[in-house]
């Protein structure tokens, strides 16, 4: 798993990789929303948790089709599938590499971007915590969608349609925790749901992803 992870990270950082893409998109969304909504900081701070979570989710979506497509096109997916590496491990490594290059930078950038939306300081901790817990699920679900659509020319649209409904629970519980945290309410229930989704995705989806890759290579 480690060699694939290191290779994908190296490829993402080098030229033509998708490293900055998600982060730049996140930045654009968060910068544009205050212009669209107008200078009412009270309104902004109320919608900030939702905007930040939707922005993070869409940024994740942007780089999903690269997870398997590039390896499929240059033939390395065939070679990886016949290598000693189990496809399940490959799926996990791919999702981990996607999270490290997309979800993790988003999580780290979120507190700074929260300032732009006048996110209450009491909510910053919850925002970072929920993104840290929730974005791995986005990468795992995304890798599954990418595996289903690998080999399709311009499968990006289908991928978005397949993946977005699966992202909704993470979005609902993630944004709910931040909203409750901002208002000083109890956050345990949505936080547990959020963690449960990620844990479930981690347990199940690498196997589903591997099965989808196997079928698409036939």
């Amino acid at each position, binding site marked *: 798993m*480690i*060699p*694939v992870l290191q*290779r994908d990270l*190296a*490829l993402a950082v*080098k*030229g*033509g*990789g998708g490293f900055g893409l998600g982060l730049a998109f996140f930045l654009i969304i968060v910068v544009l929303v205050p212009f669209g909504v107008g200078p009412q900081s009270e309104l902004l701070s109320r919608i900030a948790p939702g905007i930040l979570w939707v922005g993070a989710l869409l940024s994740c979506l942007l780089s999903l089709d690269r997870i398997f497509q590039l390896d499929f096109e*240059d*033939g*390395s997916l*065939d*070679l*990886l*599938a*016949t*290598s*000693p*590496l189990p496809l399940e491990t490959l799926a996990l490594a791919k999702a981990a590499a996607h999270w490290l290059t997309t979800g993790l930078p988003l999580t780290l950038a979120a507190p700074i971007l929260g300032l732009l939306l006048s996110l209450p300081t009491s909510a910053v901790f919850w925002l970072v915590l929920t993104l840290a817990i929730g974005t791995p699920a986005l990468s795992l679900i995304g890798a599954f969608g990418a595996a289903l659509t690998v080999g399709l020319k311009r499968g990006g649209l289908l991928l978005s349609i397949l993946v977005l409904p699966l992202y909704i629970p993470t979005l609902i519980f993630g944004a709910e925790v931040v909203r409750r945290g901002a208002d000083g309410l109890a956050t345990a229930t949505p936080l547990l749901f959020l963690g449960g989704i990620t844990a479930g995705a981690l347990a199940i989806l690498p196997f589903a992803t591997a099965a989808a890759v196997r079928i698409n*290579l*036939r």
Partner: protein
Amino acid sequence: MGISVSNLACERGSTRILEGVDFDVPDGQALILRGPNGAGKTTLLRCLAGLTPPAGGTLTHDTDDVAYAAHADGLKAQLTAGENLRFWARVYGSGDIAPAADAFRLHDLVDRPAQYLSAGQKRRLALARLTLTNRPIWCLDEPTVSLDAQNVGRFADAVRAHMAGGGVALIATHIDLGLDTARVLDISQFTASADGTEHDPFLDEALS
């Protein structure tokens, strides 16, 4: 150990391409697959490598013993030749890349990004990966494409060395590699007679 195939049927997509494939290749032997375009050479090799499950018949070998090399080189353009080789060496748990690089005269290219290699150099890099796999069965799909005569010779030497170590090679190619002991199999004789099964009502129509 070798490789033994009996009454094998292979599908690509959901179309049956080959049926009734029978052959034995003992240890230290090579089998050259011949056949016109579309005869099913790639389909057969993908089946033997475990990428496609057989539609019928039996394979005796473990697909984990197969090193597969496809039409595509499977190289990452942004990584150097050395990084590409080291990646596969780590995946296959083999140590040094120097012998593999030497066998295909790649030592001067190790630090060059793969995107700046010529087609023949990329091909040599892709073939060098085979010697890193330490797997006894090589399934090679048109391995000599874009190689010059000298490098075809080097490739044949690598196959000979592999066979001398008890390995087996199945090679789909149209050129003469100069492997004295290799047998040649024309796979067009195994082409499936129609794109259907006996349960398919359209089979009669297809045959008539």
